[in-house]
């Protein structure tokens, strides 16, 4: 690709140093690059993320050029969408690993996406999360019923629909709002351009991956452990988002940067809390007969069966 040729001019002398520091960076070079330049181009990409501000600026200029080149096929053609699925298994796994372990110097967009955002990750991570939420929420009810046979078990299939709609709306509408806001504030920043819409979607999509093991671990019916896992996962996920957004909002006024970052973290926390409260509460026996009220109950462990009122079995 032409971008690889442009990048090699500036960073050639640092390539060997960077290769020795990050030997595994070479293994993610894409197959369509000439192999003689492959390792150099990849080392350039990882070099940008080591916090040097000048390189970030040049990288973003080249990113803007690259985006223009990549949008040559019209959006009504199949090839246009195929360019968003141009990833290998190893690249997707690499991006997932990158989202699980956010590091302050490593910007997810620059380090892992490298101007090739994909839609495979966000789409299928959201689908997996929605189904895992519905399935484990149902499993919690099964386990609760084993402990307390008066709880009425039902497949609760409507939760699949709710989970799907809410996860997809979050993962696509919030990046849209964020992208719009960052573009609106573009005038204030001189040096760093905003991320494209797809890169923002990618960041959010991959950051949701850590919720999948968190949801599975929520099957363990120990409340403080559930809150601990929730806090850990939320911390990792929000940290990834903040580290990615920081280079872009850093040049804005402090107030705007603080408000933006705290809104991002807050929305993420609301998503996690909403999942916990809606999918992981089991019905206490007194609320069995009007099941449509069950969704408003915030308890997440079954109450002891020694309640003053006993329900007629349904």
């Amino acid at each position, binding site marked *: 690709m032409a971008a690889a040729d442009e990048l090699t001019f500036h960073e050639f002398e640092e390539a060997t140093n960077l290769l020795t520091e990050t030997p595994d960076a070479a293994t993610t070079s894409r*197959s369509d690059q000439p192999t003689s330049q492959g390792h150099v181009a990849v080392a350039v990409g990882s070099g940008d993320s080591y916090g040097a501000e000048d390189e970030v600026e040049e990288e973003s200029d080249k990113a803007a050029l690259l985006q223009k080149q990549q949008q040559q096929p019209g959006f009504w053609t*199949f090839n246009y*969408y*195929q360019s*968003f*699925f*141009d*990833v*290998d*298994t*190893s690249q*997707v796994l690499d991006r997932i690993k990158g989202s699980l372990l956010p590091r302050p110097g490593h910007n997810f967009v620059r380090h892992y996406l490298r101007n090739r955002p994909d839609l*495979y990750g966000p*789409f*299928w991570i959201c*689908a*997996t999360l929605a*189904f895992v939420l519905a*399935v484990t929420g*149902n499993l919690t009810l099964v386990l609760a019923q084993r402990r307390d046979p008066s709880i009425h*078990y*039902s*497949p*609760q*299939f*409507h939760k*699949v*629909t709710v989970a799907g709609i809410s996860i997809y709306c979050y993962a696509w509408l919030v990046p849209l709002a964020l992208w719009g806001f960052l573009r609106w504030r573009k005038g204030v920043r001189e040096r760093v351009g905003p991320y494209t819409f797809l890169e923002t979607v990618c960041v959010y999509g991959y950051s949701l991956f850590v919720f999948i093991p968190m949801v599975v671990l929520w099957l363990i019916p120990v409340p403080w452990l559930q809150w601990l896992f929730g806090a850990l996962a939320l911390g990792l996920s929000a940290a990834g988002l903040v580290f990615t957004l920081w280079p872009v909002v850093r040049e804005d006024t402090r107030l705007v940067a603080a408000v933006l970052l705290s809104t991002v973290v807050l929305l993420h926390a609301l998503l996690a809390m909403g999942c916990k409260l809606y999918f992981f509460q089991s019905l206490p026996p007194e609320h069995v007969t009007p*099941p*449509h009220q069950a969704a408003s109950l915030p308890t997440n462990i079954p109450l002891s069966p020694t309640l003053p009122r006993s329900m007629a079995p349904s």
Partner: protein
Amino acid sequence: MAEAEESPGDPGTASPRPLMRDLKAVGKKFMHVLYPRKSNTLLRDWDLWGPLILCVTLALMLQRDPADSEKDGGPHFAEVFVIVWFGAVTITLNSKLLGGNISFFQSLCVLGYCILPLTVAMLICRLVLLAGPGPVNFMVRLFVVIVMFAWSIVASTAFLADSQPPNRRALAVYPVFLFYFVISWMILTFTPQ
């Protein structure tokens, strides 16, 4: 798919032989799914009758009791249909976007036919449930569903994996896994009221 033809000597009566030929083709594909080998029959002579029959059967068996409450029961007939067909279309689109060289309807055909083991599992589960609830009952159903789920995955991967470039095979197969997992979950959690 074969068109119904009238044999020239019988005006006004459709000959039954094309229908039998279609049914035989569907049956042959069922056999190919149950004993997956590296053969091209499913791909070459694709048809969507088999998947339709299987989907309708599965949706009818999974249908919730009409006396069940609106919010809390199992899937409606339409929900099963939507999940199966929308899921199959999404997986096919995903496979094609990743660069696979399988045609749209061939992929739908394979995914639809490979629901056959899970439909058999649903039949067995309904029969087992007639014996009344209990932990042994649940273990038997769990075992049957797991075995059939693995069978579906193996059968569909045998047909679909070859059409993908080798460095993206896992990306194309994972949605198939998710698809059959969701269907297995619906079968396992089916409770007659």
